């Protein structure tokens, strides 16, 4: 949180400096077609990167998230959904040779959840908390001028959930660099630490396995349409099997007062298709559009659309308001509190699987000056300068038709050395 506040203050300071610079009539926005001027060299400084080609890139990300609502799945769809989460992540890209690069990332989520305490039916008013830690390591290898290949492995752990993953990626780029194709695959092998609601612990096992596997494959095609437009399409398939319900979610029935543990099928196939379209409308305005259609074999169909309008206040400073709309149908197995019947095989009162519409809106600010925001000398001969390249801060408000509301503020800092 402190980092977020510091980042915000720093950004405001830099914004003031930028405005001051504008008032002194420093060059404003550039783009001119260099070809018309008889040169074929890209001179636009919006793309100029002062870092050496073999620079190590470091990214720090942090966010604070808070939500509240009254449809907590632990209480069968009627309890509190109060949750706060403080998350941070660090990513490192290290070029080893011209062709080989190593990637590392690690992070944590420290969350505090009121509903988790209700697993034991005792609510003291204070939320219980836990931490999730995660990390990944991988490499990227340039096969030819047009092709790259990479592998990665990683894992995460929290109190009742552990996960391992492995994945690959392959990228191809056309000779004129107008078309790119990306293939990604990833496998997750997860294990639950089974925790049942307190009143159901004496009864026999309520779930048949504590394992979950997820297989993910995606194909992304990106294409330049003209000098100001580009678009991409992403087709994805996600197949999950194993324990897909949550053992400490209660479900209440019409016929009895006693709750049962949530039950969901042991398989799920998700197939989202996403389209992005970016248009540099004027020198100062960009329109970023996104649409996703989603379908899965649990009966959920969804449509998501978003629009983001980055305004370039200068070459290096952008403000981007955005709006996102999402709508989905309910899963076949969802019903609210006490509306299920005992003859059903699968049942859940988790409102994340209910019919819903959500609205997300907010704004962000990004500052990435051509020579970086700050520089510091290092004791290393090969990498004498440690530079803060850019800062990005974003605030979002999330409003769901079920009554859940959430706020998130995120900050990202990029360094190179």
């Amino acid at each position, binding site marked *: 949180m402190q980092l977020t506040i510091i980042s915000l203050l720093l950004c405001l300071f830099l914004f003031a400096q930028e405005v001051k610079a504008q008032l002194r009539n420093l060059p404003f926005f550039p*783009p001119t077609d260099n*070809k018309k001027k008889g040169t*074929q*060299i*890209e001179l636009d400084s919006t793309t100029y990167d002062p870092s050496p080609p073999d620079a190590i890139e470091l990214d720090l990300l942090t*966010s604070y*998230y808070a939500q509240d609502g009254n449809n907590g*799945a632990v209480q069968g769809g009627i309890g509190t959904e109060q*949750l706060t*989460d403080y998350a941070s*992540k660090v990513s490192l890209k290290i070029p080893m040779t011209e062709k080989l690069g190593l990637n590392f990332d690690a992070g944590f989520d420290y969350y505090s959840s009121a509903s988790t305490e209700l697993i034991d039916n005792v609510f003291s008013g204070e939320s219980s908390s836990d931490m999730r830690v995660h990390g990944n390591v991988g490499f990227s290898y340039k096969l030819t001028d047009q092709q790259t290949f990479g592998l990665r492995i*990683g894992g*995460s752990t929290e109190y009742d*959930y552990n*996960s391992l*993953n492995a994945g690959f990626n392959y990228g191809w780029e056309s000779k004129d*660099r*107008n*078309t790119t194709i990306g293939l990604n695959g990833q496998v*997750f092998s*997860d294990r639950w630490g089974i925790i049942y609601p307190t009143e159901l612990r004496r009864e026999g096992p309520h779930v048949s396995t504590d394992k979950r596997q*997820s297989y993910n494959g995606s194909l992304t095609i*990106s*294409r*330049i*349409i*003209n*000098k*100001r437009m*580009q*678009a991409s*399409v*992403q*087709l*994805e398939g*996600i197949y999950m099997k194993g324990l897909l319900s949550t053992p*400490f*979610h209660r479900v209440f029935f019409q016929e009895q007062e006693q709750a049962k543990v949530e039950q969901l099928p042991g398989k799920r196939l*998700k197939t*989202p298709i996403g*389209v992005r379209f*970016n248009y*540099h409308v004027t020198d100062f305005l960009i329109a*970023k559009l996104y649409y*996703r259609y*989603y*379908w899965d074999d649990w009966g959920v*169909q*969804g449509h*998501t659309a978003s629009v983001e309008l980055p305004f370039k206040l200068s070459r290096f400073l952008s403000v981007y308001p955005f709006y996102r709309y999402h709508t989905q149908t309910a*899963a076949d197995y969802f019903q609210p509190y006490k509306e299920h019947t005992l003859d059903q095989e699968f049942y859940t009162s988790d409102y*994340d699987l209910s019919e819903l519409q959500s609205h997300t809106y907010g704004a*962000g600010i990004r500052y990435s000056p051509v020579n970086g925001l700050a520089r510091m000398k290092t004791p290393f001969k090969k990498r004498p300068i440690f530079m803060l390249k850019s800062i*990005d801060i*974003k605030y979002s408000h*999330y409003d769901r038709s079920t009554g859940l509301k*959430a706020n*998130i503020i*995120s900050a990202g800092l*990029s360094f190179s050395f």
Partner: protein
Amino acid sequence: MKKTTKTIMAFALTITTLGSCVSVKEYQKMYLNDSEMELTARKVEYFETNFQTYREGASGANGGKVGGGCGCN
């Protein structure tokens, strides 16, 4: 579902193939190379995308996570 999927795939195919009519040279990419024009989610959206994945049954095709955490709170 099938009709909607076909429509979307046709739209996607149109975008990716019709665009090939124009080949943009490197020196003409001053707008396309703008960092705001990247065809991926922003790095700073990493955590936000994860929360959307948890709070909405629908997920994927947006660079967000697809596994590796129960998201059950």
